[in-house]
């Protein structure tokens, strides 16, 4: 098993073996495509393909379950904002609201599309981040000619996020060991229990950041202008091809979005 930022992955997962540049590019492409594509049908196909790919790629689907509560909250927020505050014209007006907005058949479809976009971003990012390590970010960005200081900072930020998660579990366990049952009580009681985690997590976070500054100095970060690297990631021909394909796909999507309505929501722009 290999420990990535957020979980353990089988070391024979095809995704884990991808070149760092490809991993980063995939993350960017998935998110940009989800931002460009407005066609609910295409989004639905992309999302379905991504969910189905978890198993063959040996990434545990349960990863998504960890973000389920967060996803449900965002989905609700998207749905309510369109249902209560939009004026998207449609074939049928289903509901007129006292404050001047209305719900049409197209409102429902557009809200559904926006939810699909969000889920595509979430599922896609989860899939790629599930196989990412600090080395992938640092080496991937360096290969893309990003300066080491920036690449390392970005990688450290991801790492700090995973350390924050570990700290969260530690503090939560400590509280459970002193009688806090996080699974019992109403949603408000649960929220109250979880809110008590904030202060110790903040204290731990501040301490970590303060110590990190001189620990990095002590480890000689910035000691030499020219840094050497342990790993070498030469690009294979197939990986070069994949980079060209992904970059072309992204460019084509942007062109298609600007020049035609192929990827746009039916009826867009609303007038």
């Amino acid at each position, binding site marked *: *098993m*290999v*420990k990535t*930022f957020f*979980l*353990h992955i089988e070391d024979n997962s095809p995704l884990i073996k991808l070149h760092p540049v490809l991993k980063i590019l995939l993350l960017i492409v998935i998110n940009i495509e989800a931002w460009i594509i407005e066609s609910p049908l295409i989004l639905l196909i992309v999302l379905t393909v991504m969910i189905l790919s978890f198993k063959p790629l040996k990434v545990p689907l349960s990863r998504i379950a960890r973000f389920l509560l967060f996803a449900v909250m965002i989905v609700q927020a998207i749905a309510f904002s369109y249902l209560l505050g939009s004026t998207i014209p449609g074939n049928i007006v289903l509901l007129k609201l006292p404050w001047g907005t209305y719900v049409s058949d197209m409102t429902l479809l557009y809200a559904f599309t926006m939810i699909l976009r969000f889920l595509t971003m979430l599922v896609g990012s989860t899939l790629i981040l599930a196989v990412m*390590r*600090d*080395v992938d970010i640092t080496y991937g960005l360096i290969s893309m000619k990003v300066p080491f200081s920036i690449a390392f900072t970005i990688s*450290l930020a991801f*790492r700090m996020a995973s*350390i924050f998660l*570990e700290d969260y579990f*530690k*503090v939560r*366990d*400590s*509280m*459970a*060991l*002193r*009688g*806090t*049952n996080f*699974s019992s009580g109403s949603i408000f009681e649960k929220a109250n229990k979880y809110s*008590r*985690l904030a*202060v*110790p997590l903040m*204290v*731990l976070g501040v*301490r*970590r950041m303060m*110590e*990190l*500054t*001189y*620990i*990095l*100095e*002590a*480890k*000689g*970060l*910035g*000691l*030499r202008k*020219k*840094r*050497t*690297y*342990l790993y*070498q990631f030469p690009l294979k021909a197939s990986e070069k091809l994949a980079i060209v394909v992904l970059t072309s796909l992204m460019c084509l999507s942007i062109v298609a979005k600007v020049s035609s309505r192929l990827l746009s929501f039916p009826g867009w722009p609303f007038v």
Partner: protein
Amino acid sequence: MTRAIKIENLWWKYEASETWTLKGISIEIEQGEFVGVMGPSGAGKTTLCLCMAGIIPNAVKGDMRGNVEVLGKDTRGTPLSEIMKDVGIVFQDPDMQFVTMRVIDEVAFVLENQGVPRQDMIKRIDEALTLVGMQDMKFKNPLELSGGQKQRVAIASMIARRPKIMIFDEPTSDLDPQGKRKVFSILSKLRDKYNLTIVLVCHEIEELVKYADKIIFMRKGEVIKEGSLKEMFNDSAIAENNRIPLPQVTELYYRLLKSRGLKFIENGPPLTIEEFLTLFNGNVEKGRVKEISYTRTHYGEVVLSLRGVSYTYPDGTKAIKGINLDVRKGEFLVIVGPNGSGKTTLLKLMIGMLKPTKGVVRVFGTDTRELSVSDVAFKVGFVYQNPDHQLFCNTVYEECAYALRNAGLDENEIRYVVKEVLRQVELQGLEEVPPYFLSKGQRQRLAIAAVLAMRPEVIVVDEPTTGQDYEQSQYIMDMLKSLNENGRTIIMATHNMRLVAEYADRVIVLIDGKIVADGPVRKIMSSLELLERASLNPPQVTLLTLKLLGIPALTISEALSMMVT
């Protein structure tokens, strides 16, 4: 010899503090010296290390007076990155110092920053990891290793880097005894090979005496005594007055002279078993030793039961393999074993924090899979190895009251219980102080108090004396012993064999997730082959009496009563 470090009348006060942490320190360390720094908690040892590394005053704010010169450079006027070219430092808490996600990357990071060519880097990483016994773990995440393994990684990073001055702040507190011995020996060899200067803060006096050229003893921010080993221990009164811990054989030597009215021997006290044997062999006969008790039988009912228990971590590591164990009410059970043998995992299974992947763990007859962690907590309390993982409230009082509020006690009752437990751990008067402002020893005592407040029948403690000086360790152990004598069952994991000998009833030896021995403490302490296999060493006095008299003494007093000169 060239001077490596020169400190002149150094005073240091942290920005938020009103008192001076260092008070008029003056030290000179030559290039190639191996210097040990000792002293109780709060003596200023870590602060002194930060000053020697130039982190103070370059990265930490405060008021500094006096001068610190490192290889001729004044740390005040030299950028930290410049100082760090020649100085390396390993901090006390390895958790805080890992910046990458794999052991190999962690060691490589410092070399990459130094611009070491790749081929040379691979060779140095390999050599350093082999030296500390972590070659097989190079692809593991450092944060998922055991405490001792983490320290080995931190040491390997330093060894691979080879700066001219190596500063280690308690780098071996979590290591098993043979691991400690190995690290000391490696450092000594590296010093000889590369003429490195080594400054090492630690509490392991018995190891330090074998390798250090000089020892600096600190207390309350001052250097109390500094000198060669013989100078340090030549006068028992100085050691006693300054509460300087002595190696067990040295203490035994002084007590033997005193009790028998013998004169001090000119060559100075023995510091090692070998020296003691040379001095006394033939002059000591076996005394009238009262019948040695190997077992204590009056224990209560089974409170914890493990049947065929195995545990595998998500990364596939099989930490516990088919353990069967019963713990009875009133036992003082100690679990010992090498780093990474599964001690902490076993403790976590006992408190229901981990559920077995195979087998059953029963707490007072109930399967832990049917209980939440909070259900088990009021019956079996758990004290973490690192108190900082356990303390999360804003004040000492709140920390102790937290569980009681969860249990629904009224405020009057809570006040009474908190007062009582704080008295037990001698933290009364500090009720309103934030836990993070306490010393490590005080934080460890607070962590125990917070658990005691829940009045659990069983207290599970993971390495409670790690990083504590001998006085603090004894204090904590006395407290646990007193709780045990008042009917509480104590289960503890530790590497400190001196404390195991002095306090435990029953000892379990864990190797590679399996129990390889389970028995009374004296029996385990006499099984030298078994201890060797478990990377453990018996206390000096036990080994000495075994060699000298063929009987294992567990304490200095016991050894004294066994000897007739």
